[in-house]
């Protein structure tokens, strides 16, 4: 187990280094002069040269890269020229709303996914099952930003029962959280349905039935509990997806999260913030994946044998 965790940790560190390098390459190596982007096209050559020297853009790329990595070890991403604060602070300030939104999307996904999935499994091949499977296919295919806009058209403009933009209330959370959750409700529902159907054929279910337990007890006490193990571990992956996919939903609903900060910062060429946001999101994403793998190995001993 320790060897597995150690190897997985090393892999995660490699991935984080890789992600940092990808961002560095995208922002510094690809064509485009950050100094010119910051100062605009009317800047004098002297101003440009001054800023380039200040940002360290005159150094050879390997030197810039080393400076960059050193800065990151001190958690120093540089200053946000747009907000005048440290890029990391600007980013962490917006992390809270994103986590709140992701957590609520998770609640929606788990509740709706389990309800639809277990209902579909208990009524396998019925009309309801088919309806659920078709809507899960459609839900997964629809572009999230369009779902968001249509939901706000119906509930905010049409029925006028929910706000369409963030105003700090619980009600303003419902639409973005549901939009974020929707594609994954169908995904989780399918997982739950398959899991329940597989468990239903196990010997212990027959034993429980033979003991005279009611269908309800067999389902809730025995079957559902056993399907939980593989599915709970998937929730970590979901959280990572919510944080990453939240970008578009945050823009649609003007949610003051990290994703909207990313899009704004790219638009305004505030590259220090772009680096900070991408690093924070990727570290969250990779850490959650790591936790999932370790948790899975812990809950299901067969995984360790395969990796031994």
């Amino acid at each position, binding site marked *: 187990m320790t060897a597995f965790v150690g190897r997985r940790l090393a*892999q995660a560190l*490699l*991935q*984080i280094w*890789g*992600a940092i390098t*990808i*961002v560095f390459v*995208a*922002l510094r190596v*690809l064509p*485009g002069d950050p100094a010119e982007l910051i100062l605009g096209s009317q800047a004098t050559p002297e101003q440009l040269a001054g800023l380039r020297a200040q940002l360290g853009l005159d150094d050879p790329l390997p030197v810039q890269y080393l400076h960059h990595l050193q800065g990151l070890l001190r958690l120093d991403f540089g200053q946000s020229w747009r907000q005048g604060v440290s890029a990391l602070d600007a980013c962490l300030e917006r992390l809270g709303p994103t986590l709140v939104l992701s957590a609520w999307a998770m609640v929606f996904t788990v509740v709706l996914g389990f309800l639809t999935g277990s209902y579909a499994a208990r009524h396998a091949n019925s009309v309801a099952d088919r309806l659920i499977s078709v809507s899960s*296919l*459609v839900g*997964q*295919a*629809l*572009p*999230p*930003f*369009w779902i968001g*806009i*249509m939901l*706000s*058209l119906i509930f905010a*403009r049409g029925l006028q029962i929910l706000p*369409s933009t963030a105003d700090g209330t619980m009600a303003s959370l419902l639409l973005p959280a549901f939009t974020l959750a929707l594609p994954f409700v169908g995904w989780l529902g399918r997982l739950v349905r398959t899991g329940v159907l597989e468990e239903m054929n196990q010997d212990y279910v027959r034993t429980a039935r033979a003991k005279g337990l009611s269908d309800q007890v067999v389902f809730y006490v025995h079957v559902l509990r056993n399907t939980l193990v593989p599915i709970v571990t998937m929730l970590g992956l979901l959280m*990572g*997806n919510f944080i*990453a*996919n939240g*970008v*578009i939903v945050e*823009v*649609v609903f003007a949610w003051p999260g990290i994703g909207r900060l*990313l*899009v704004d910062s*790219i*638009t305004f060429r505030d590259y220090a913030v*772009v680096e900070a946001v*991408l690093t924070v*999101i*990727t570290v969250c*994403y*990779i850490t959650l*994946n790591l936790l999932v793998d370790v948790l899975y190995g812990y809950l299901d001993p067969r995984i360790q044998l395969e990796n031994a």
Partner: protein
Amino acid sequence: MMPPKLDDPLPGRTGAIVRRLAGLPPRAHFALGMVLLFVVAGVLGPLLVPFDAAATSPPDRLLPPGTRLSDGAVAWLGTNQVGQDILAAVLAGMRTSLTVALVTVVVAGSVGLLMGLLAGYFGGWADGIISRLGDIQLAFPSLLLAILLAGVLGPSMLNVIIALAVTRWVIFARVVRGSALAVRDREFVDSARVMGASHGRILIHYILPSCLPPLLVAATVQIGLTMVAEASLSFLGLGVPPSQASWGSTIAQGRDYLASAWWIAAAPGAALALVVVSIGILGDLLRDASDPMTEL
């Protein structure tokens, strides 16, 4: 499979294709029809109903679907805030979406095919490098990578294709690597090697054919996902430039007029949703067809 009847009205290859098509489930007909319709609409539509991003027509602003315009034409899907016909914008957007998706999938698929063959067939350090590179890239959420690249490169159709192809090649490489790995040590490959076939010949004649079906399935699925990704980038203002129509940018315009003109956002979104769902159904069917195990 039904045994062929003696009085077969359509013998031969054409007959076989027609019978196979007729035997498909209704959702397959729906999906095939939709995809064909949209491809034809994307290719021919802009010729019939031209879209000019720079043209404005103030008297025709924000007209609901079905209104007659000042020039006598009927705007079947309404008009936007500068009086442009939404139908024309949707058709032009279809062409953009289709172009970006096809080129992206061809480019990413070719790179992925090459990398996957190298990694799966030769193994060793080639596999080590390509697989680690893929691991590292997949640890980076693909939407964010596309946003980063498209944002840095600037709005143009070519840059969108580059950004999306960079995020997709790994998926194809993994699929191909898996299939190549599975057949690499089979007897027919060994016998070819014993007969003195070169690596190139083995790759093309023995390995490649078994990599193509899963690659085709992956490509179909990716076309749908790439269309959504292109629309997402354009929605954020990081996709194709404003001079070109895109469903994403039309939806973004429509967001500001939800209260007065819902059709601006609804029409391109519905088109996108229909195409993507249809392509998803086709992808599922192809997967079932290429994997005999699912019939059991």
